[in-house]
Each structure stands twice: as structure tokens, then as C-alpha cells.
């Protein structure tokens, strides 16, 4: 398989994530969508790295994984906090701030 | 140094007042005296400038130049010539009067009021003396802030609306001028390799006609709003009517002149070709303004609004004179600026006094004041006649010169403007008649007090000035002569190259005619 295939795969995963973020009402699902988007990039990075024989991309992917994990952790923490304060995880009901 | 002092004195005075503790208004009296003292010192400084001014020279005098922001060739560069000299003196003259006028009417937050008036004076003087476009713009915009607060805090019922309208209108015009200023600095750097905002260097900058048009429009829009030229005048009645008396006096007396001064100093000489192209159009707007202002003034029930619209009309004359671009027109324009400052400033002052007494400015509320307040009536009559342009009073000289200049340029405009003169007599005298003659129709008017000594202190200098300017116009025409000639020559030099001019405008001729008008005026 060539580079093209990996890039296409990443793009598809990215778009699925994007679609999820945009259409989902449940905050957890939105978080999942964002995770998909972030991780699709890892496919790209590794693929580029593999096909150019340069290790930077791999290293980058490791960093990205770390960062996405922290983001996910923080995101879930905020969702839990939100649920405690507002008793809801539905994005549509978060409408205190408008204008 | 003297020139810097003329704007630094009021500013430092304002900052000093800031330090005076006056939380509960206990030191109001002291603050009033302090502010008056500062403004009188500033006036003395401007008089000192006049005394040391050399009327024979057309060059800028008292020039000071210090590097300010060297990266962009911005200097602290000030100086005056015959045109700006008298406007600076006028500013110095009117500020103490404005402060005096507030002694009876401003009781709240006297300290802040005085600070804003002094800051305003500093900015206004700064506008007139700046020879660096950046410096000019800084003063021009900074001036808005104190005026905004003066109208907004101490004004009448709809003060907030008027203040914001004033601010936004003026800013909308001036920001476009800012772009044009930047454009010119850029063109200068493209031509010579260095940025400059130096007016004198930009005078000699060669700008393509097409670009000139745009820049001229940007500059002129800013000034036309300030003047205010029809149809940009709608902020003026609001601002004038809502402003406190002191604000109106300064607004009419000095602020409006900044617009016409800007035309004379920047729009026309910086872009002579565009000016020649647009002059008839500007003059057309000016004439419309003259007649429209007069007609609208006629139907106003509110005295302050009437005087405000009369300003639109009078300032139209000034613009017409500038557009004529000959010596009479320009001299008349400058003279009319001064005369209008004195007479309209006086009218606003005295309308303010009436309004302080009766808390209304509606003409219908008054009548027969002549018997109740004879001194006030006499002073008001002088101001009314001065505003109409009766020979022997200050309004006449300027209007006459302008009409003469306009007639030599385009008789049609002069004729139309002449109609404005007649109309101005109609609305002013009609108002005078309704307010002062006839029986006392309203009970409250029977007990009105006449002019108090403190009020005389404000009114008397204005009346005296109206007379002096009407009888001895040479005192004021002399210093501006050389500068106006130089300006006219400059305008014509480009015109003779670029466009055909219908009338022969040799400066010698002009000189002779001026002396004729002076003689007429003196009579």
C-alpha cells in the first residue's frame, strides 16, 4: 500500500470525527469525535514518517498521544463537573451564555 | 517656547486642578478662581504671541521642532502664521469667558468641569499651532474627549445622545483623514525614502491628480463635518442645544473654526489641483448651507437651536470665501471665523443666561424683556446686529470681503449668498423682536434680574470686541495679510499650470481691492 492509502484513511477518520463533533448532542460523543480527529493525525504522522524514512514523525506521534490523553482526561473532568453542577450532559441545554 | 506654553499652560493647569481634593465640593470657589486664573494666563500668553508676531512675514513664526517619533519622521513641530495666530488668540479669549459663564450655571462637579474646559483649550490651541500632521491629528482627536464629557455630563436632557452623536460624527470623518495622512506619509517615503508628517515638506510633495482627489475628499470630509457643511451638519444642532453654555460658546466660538481652518491649512494647499476641481462643488454646498441654515433657523422655536442653525449659515460663508481662492475671499473667511467666534459665542452666552434664569429657551416663553432687563437687551442687540453683519460691527467686514471674493470668482454664488445675508437679518431680528419687545406676556419674566457684574465680565469683552473688530478691521487684517497672500499665490501657481482660470487674479489687484474694502469697512 502506498502513502496515498494511509492519507485517505486518516482523512476518512478525521471526517468521521468532525461529523460526530458537529452532529452529536451528547457531550461524551462530542469528546469521542474530537479524539477521533486528533488520533487520525497520528496515522498521518506515522505514515509520513515511514515513507520518508525520517523518525521525527514517529516522535511527534508519541507526543500527540500523550497530549490527547491529557486532553481527554481534562475533558472528562470538565464534563463530570458540568454534570454535577447542571445535571445534564446534553450540549443543547448549555445555554446560560448567549448573546 | 511661547507657542508651546500657549497649550501647555492650560494643560498643566488642568493637571494641577486634578490634584486639588474636592470630594464634597467645598473648594468649588477656589477651583473656579484657579481655573479662571489659568485661562487668563493662557490668554496673556497668546496675546504675547500676537505682540511678538511679525505681520510682514508670510513664514511660520515661533517655530519649534523637536524630534518625537523619529522612526516615522514625526516631530513635535509647531508654528503659526497670520491665519492661525488670531485663531489661537480667539481661543485664549473665549476660554475665560466660557469659564465665567459657568459660575452661575455649573454647580455639580465644578472641578471636573474646569479640568475638561482647560484640557479642551489645550487641545484646541494644539490643533491651530501644529505643523506636523501627526501632531495635528493627535490634538484633533484628543479634543473630542473633553468636549464629549462636557456635553454628556453637564448638558441638558438629551445630552448623552448629543454627546455620542458629536463624537461619532467627528470621528467618522477624521479617521478617513487619518488614512489619507498615512497615505501621504507613505507617498513621501516612496518619493524620497523617508517618512514625514511635516506639513511644509508635504506641501511640496508632488501627488498624482487622481490620488489628490481621494486625499482631498478624505481631508475635506473630516473638515466639512466639523464646519459643519451641509449636509454633514446634523450633529451640530443637537450638540449645541444640549451642551452647557460654556460648551456651546467654545463649540461655536472655536471648534467649528477648526474645520474651516483645516480647509485653509490642509485641504486646499496640500491638494491644490483637487481643490480647484472641487471648489465649485464645495461652494455649492456652502451656499446651500447658507440658505438652508437661515431658513431652518427662522422656524426654530428654541433660541439655542436658532443660533445653532445660524452657525451653519455663517460658516457656509466662510467655506464660500475659502472656495473663491482669492485674497478677498480668504481674508474674509478668516475674518468671518473670528467674527463668528465672537458674535455667536456671545449669543450662546446670553441665551445661556436667559436659560439659567428661566430654565427654558423657547422664544414663545419670553417677550417684553426690554423693560425688565434693559442692560441685557442692549448687549443682546449688539450681538444680534453683529451676527447679522451690520456695518460697524464685526460680522460685516468678513461677510463683505467674502461676498466680494465670491463675486469675483462666481457671481451666482455671491448672489445666492447675499440672499442668506438678508435672511439672517430676518430671523435674528424676528427673534429679537419676539423676545425683547412687546408686552411682558409671561408672569415669570417680570422678576428677571438684569445682568450681574459677573455676567458683565463675560459679556463686555465680547461686545467690545464686536465693536473693535467692526471699526478697526485693520488690526486683525494686517497680521493675516502676508500669509493669505502667500496662500493665494500658492493656490494660483498650481492652477495656472493645471487649469484655465476664467478671471484674472493678479495679487496686485487684490491688494488694492483689499484696501478699498478696509476703507469701506472703516466707514
Amino acid at each position, binding site marked *: 500500500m502506498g502513502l496515498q492509502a494511509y492519507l485517505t484513511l486518516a482523512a476518512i477518520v*478525521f471526517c468521521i470525527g468532525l461529523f460526530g*463533533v458537529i452532529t452529536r448532542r451528547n*457531550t461524551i460523543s*462530542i*469528546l469521542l469525535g*474530537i479524539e477521533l*480527529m*486528533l488520533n487520525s*493525525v497520528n496515522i*498521518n*504522522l506515522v505514515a*509520513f514518517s515511514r515513507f520518508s524514512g*525520517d523518525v*521525527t*514523525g514517529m516522535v*511527534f506521534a508519541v*507526543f*500527540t498521544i500523550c*497530549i490527547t490523553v*491529557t*486532553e481527554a482526561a*481534562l*475533558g472528562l473532568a*470538565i*464534563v463530570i*463537573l458540568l454534570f454535577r*453542577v*447542571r445535571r445534564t450532559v446534553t450540549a443543547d441545554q*448549555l445555554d*446560560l*451564555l448567549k*448573546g | 517656547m511661547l507657542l508651546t506654553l500657549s497649550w501647555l499652560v492650560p494643560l498643566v493647569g488642568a493637571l494641577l486642578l486634578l490634584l486639588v481634593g474636592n470630594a464634597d465640593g467645598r473648594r468649588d470657589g477656589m477651583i473656579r478662581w484657579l481655573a479662571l486664573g489659568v485661562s487668563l494666563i493662557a490668554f496673556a500668553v497668546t496675546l504675547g504671541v500676537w505682540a511678538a508676531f511679525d505681520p510682514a512675514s508670510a513664514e511660520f513664526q515661533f517655530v519649534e521642532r523637536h524630534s*518625537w*517619533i523619529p*522612526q*516615522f519622521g514625526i516631530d513635535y513641530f509647531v508654528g503659526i502664521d497670520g491665519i492661525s495666530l488670531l485663531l489661537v488668540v480667539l481661543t485664549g479669549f473665549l476660554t475665560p469667558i466660557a469659564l465665567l459663564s459657568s459660575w452661575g450655571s455649573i454647580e455639580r462637579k465644578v472641578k471636573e468641569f474646569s479640568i475638561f474646559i482647560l484640557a479642551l483649550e489645550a487641545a484646541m490651541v494644539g490643533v491651530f499651532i501644529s505643523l506636523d500632521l*501627526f501632531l495635528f*491629528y*493627535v490634538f484633533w*482627536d*484628543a479634543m473630542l474627549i473633553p468636549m464629549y464629557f462636557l456635553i*454628556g*455630563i453637564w448638558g441638558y436632557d438629551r*445630552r*448623552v445622545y448629543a*454627546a*455620542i452623536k458629536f*463624537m*461619532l460624527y467627528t*470621528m*467618522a470623518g477624521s*479617521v*478617513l483623514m*487619518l*488614512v489619507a495622512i*498615512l*497615505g501621504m*506619509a*507613505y507617498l513621501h*517615503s516612496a518619493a524620497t525614502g523617508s517618512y514625514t508628517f511635516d506639513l511644509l515638506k508635504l506641501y511640496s510633495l508632488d501627488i498624482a491628480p487622481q490620488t489628490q482627489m481621494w486625499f482631498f475628499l478624505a481631508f475635506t470630509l473630516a473638515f466639512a463635518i466639523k464646519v459643519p457643511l451641509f449636509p454633514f451638519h446634523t450633529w451640530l444642532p443637537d450638540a449645541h442645544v444640549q451642551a452647557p453654555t460654556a460648551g456651546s460658546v467654545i463649540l461655536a466660538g472655536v471648534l467649528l473654526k477648526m474645520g474651516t481652518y483645516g480647509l485653509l491649512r490642509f485641504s486646499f494647499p496640500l491638494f491644490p489641483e483637487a481643490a480647484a476641481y472641487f471648489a465649485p462643488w464645495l461652494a455649492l454646498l456652502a451656499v446651500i448651507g447658507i440658505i438652508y441654515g437661515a431658513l431652518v433657523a427662522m422656524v426654530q422655536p428654541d433660541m439655542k437651536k436658532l443660533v445653532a442653525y445660524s452657525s451653519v449659515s455663517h460658516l457656509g460663508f466662510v467655506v464660500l470665501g475659502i472656495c473663491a481662492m482669492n485674497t478677498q475671499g480668504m481674508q474674509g473667511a478668516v475674518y468671518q471665523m473670528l467674527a463668528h467666534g465672537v458674535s455667536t459665542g456671545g449669543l450662546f452666552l446670553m441665551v445661556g443666561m436667559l436659560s439659567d434664569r428661566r430654565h427654558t429657551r423657547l422664544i414663545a416663553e419670553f417677550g417684553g424683556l426690554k423693560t425688565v432687563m434693559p442692560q441685557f437687551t442692549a448687549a443682546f442687540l449688539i450681538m444680534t446686529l453683529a451676527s447679522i453683519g451690520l456695518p460697524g460691527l464685526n460680522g460685516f467686514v468678513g461677510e463683505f470681503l467674502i461676498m466680494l471674493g465670491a463675486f469675483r470668482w462666481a457671481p451666482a454664488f455671491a448672489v445666492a449668498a447675499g440672499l442668506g445675508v438678508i435672511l439672517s437679518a430676518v430671523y435674528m431680528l424676528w427673534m429679537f423682536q419676539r423676545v425683547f419687545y412687546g408686552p411682558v406676556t409671561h408672569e415669570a419674566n417680570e422678576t428677571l434680574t438684569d445682568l450681574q457684574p459677573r455676567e458683565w465680565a463675560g459679556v463686555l469683552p465680547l461686545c467690545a470686541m464686536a465693536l473693535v473688530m467692526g471699526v478697526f478691521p485693520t488690526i486683525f487684517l494686517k497680521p493675516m495679510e502676508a500669509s493669505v497672500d502667500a496662500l493665494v499665490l500658492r493656490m494660483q501657481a498650481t492652477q495656472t499650470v493645471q487649469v484655465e482660470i476664467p478671471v484674472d487674479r493678479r495679487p496686485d489687484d487684490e491688494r488694492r481691492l483689499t484696501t478699498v474694502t478696509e476703507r469701506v469697512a472703516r466707514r
Partner: protein
Amino acid sequence: MMDTPFNAVVPMLCVVFAALAVMMAEAFRGRDEQMALGGLGIVGLVGAAVSSMLLWNRNASSFGVIVADNFGLFVTMTLVIVGVLTIMFSSVVVRRDGLPAGEYYALVLFAVVGMIMMATANDLLVIFIALEILSLAVYVLTGIRRDDPRATEAAFKYFLLGAFSSAFFLYGIAFTYGVSGSTRLDRIGAFLAAQSMSDSPLILVAIGMLLVGFAFKISAVPFHMWTPDAYEGAPAVVTGFMSTGVKAAAFAAFTRVFLSAFEPFSVDWAPMIWILAVATMILGTVVGVAQTNVKRMLAYSSIAHGGYLLVGLIAANDVGKAAILFYLLAYAVTNVAAFGVIALLGTRDAANDELRDFSGLWHGRPALAALMTVCLLSLGGLPPTAGFIGKWYIFSAAVSAGYYGLAIIGVLTSVVSVFFYLRVVVMMYMEERDPGLAAPAHVGGVGMVALVASIVVIFYLGVLPTRVLDLAAESISTIF
């Protein structure tokens, strides 16, 4: 200072150590023991400022990915000022609202670390890490009032869109890496310059994605949706911090990436940013007019200011680059101070950030009203304040690059923006105090000192900008 490979990261290390010290101090603090944790942070920030001054003109570089060039150092100084002012305002707020001091200051300091890192990074990977460091800290700061439903909602929205934009940003980086084979900005620039004529679609995708990522971070329209909500919901002092610090850091990186690495493709991205800039300036001001909450209004104003900064980026000449730096500084000081006033006016139970909460402020707190007015006038770009010189600098950049249209849109929108700044002034000066409102809070001590200091800076930059203009001009000479 000796020349070691660590030189360039010294300013950052100062702040890192301060943050660690704050965390340690918090951990070993007795139950009711009061500690000047903020002071500790200020010491670290001052250390960063001093080391930046020492590094000035030395062009130090660490590990090839962090460069302490003058550009980065100028932004670092700006960030230090933002940090110090924020901590000073916070010291009042933290005590008043009973916020967890240790966590709060540590997060502020770590956010500053991320910002400094972002401003001095010379590698896309490092920029991304820096972006995450500062974002994660700011997400938490936004929601630091855990029991406040609005703050929590703001934190959540901010987080979602922040993470969302990070994905775009990361995607852009991946493509850039794929095309050029490197994440180092200098190498990318060299690579692209060598073959700038072959318009590879991949690189355009990369530029587009990075642009979207940056546009989110600087809240350019149409990627501004998170800004008003996050700014309104967060505590005012945090809003001041993130509206200036995050924006400054993001703009520094934005400028560095687009004007060094992607310079060869400026024909492609300049029109895109042109549209962004115009939309940002217009929407920021027009929507700002309709707001009744001062924090939200200032949020839209900060969107508009992002638009002005973009104008400098489009101009892309020396004037423009220096103008961005000067404008960032002027805007940062002014905005932090303006939000500082709002923060100081709040109480533990009420944010007091509605327009009517400012009514008649002049009568009760004349000094505070005057200081707020100066900030607002500076934001509106009136002389003689820092904002005026900043705007003037930006627009002269636009004019000298021939973008007259942008300059005209810019000045006209700034007039519109003056309208809504004046609404606050009108409330403070020209309305009587709403009788239903409690008397405004007393402000004293550190908060007032910080405010007065900011006002002095605002006037200094407005009246005697020469020195700082020189520094800004020197800053851009080193990198591009």
C-alpha cells in the same frame, strides 16, 4: 550570561520554577496559613523579564527548537507584563472569592510558560506542545469557580472548541511535515522557497488547516464562536488573562509560522487572511454594539482587535511585523487593565459585569471610573493613549503595503467600536447610580497599584512611544 545551549529557555525556566515553587508551597502550607503565593509568581516572572533583557540581541537558540530572538523576547516581555498584572489583580480576587490559591497561581504561571514557549518556538511540534500547555491551563482557569454553572459551561465550551481547533492545527502540521520532511520552521521555509512554484495541493491543505487552527486561537471570524461564551463565563481576571496572553502567544506563533515558513506562499494565504481580517473587524464591532454585558462586549472588542492585528499580518512588511508587536503590547496592557477593573468591581456573590452595574460609578468611585475610561479610550484608539499609536502603526503598515481598503474598513470599524466603549463611559459618568444596586466595591491595595501602573504604561506608550517602537523594529529585524 554564558553561552550555553540552555540560554534561550532561561526565561521559561524562571517561570517554571516559580510555578513549581508555588505548588510545593501550597502542598506544605498549613491549614490556615496565609502565603504570598502570588508574590512568588511575580518573582519568577521578573526573573523571566530580566533574563529576556539579558538575552536581547543575542539571538540565543536552544536545541534548535526554541529561539530567543528579539521577536520572541519582545512577546515574552509582553507576556510577563500580562502575567504580573494578572497575578496582582488575582491576589485580590482569589482572597475575595476563596479560590484555591495554590492551584490558581500555578495554573496561571504554567499558562505563561506555555505562552512564552509558543512565542519562542521554532518548531511546529514545540508550538503544538506549547499550545496545549497553555490551553489546558486556561481551560481549568476558566472553570476555576467550580460551583458557578456559567463558569463551568464556559470552561466546557472553551475546551470543546479548543480541542476541536487543535485537531485542525495538528492535521495541518502533519501535512506540513509530510510535504517538507521537517517540523522546523527554518527548514520548512527553506524547502518551500526552493520549490515555491510547484503548487502542491498538499501544502495548500496544510496551510489551510494551520490557518483554521490559528484562527480559532486568535478568535478570528468565523472561528470566534467560543470567545464570547468563554470570556463571559470565566472570572473577569481570567478573561483578561486569556484575552491578552493567549492572543499574544497565538499571534506570535501565527506571525512566525506564516511570515517565515510559509512566506513563499503568501500569494495563496494573504487573500484568505484578508477575508478573515475584514470579517473579524466588522463582526467584532457590529455585534459588540448589541451587548449589554460588559465582559461580553469586551469579548467582541477583543475579536475586533484580533482583526486589526491580522491587518498587520497581511501587510507583511517590516512596518506590519513591528506593528503587530507594538499593538500586542498596547492591547495587552489595556485589556488586562480593563478586565482588572471589572474583576475588582465584582463581589463573591455577584460578578457585577452588566452594563448597568457601572451606572454612576463616577460618583462613588471616581478614580476607578477614570481609570476604566482611559482603558476604554485606549481600546477605542483615541489619542494620547497606547491604543492610538497601535492603531496608527497598524494602519500605516496597511497603507504602506497598498491595502487602502483594509485601512479604511479598519478605521471605520474602530469608530463603531468607540460607540460601545462609550456606552460604558456613558453609564459611569452620565447616569445616576441605579438605586437597586449596592454601592460599588472598595478597591485598594495591590489591585489599585496594578491599575495605576497599567495606566502609566498606556500613557507612556501613547505619548512617548519612541523607545518601544525602536524595540519593536529591532525585534523583527532578527528573524525574517
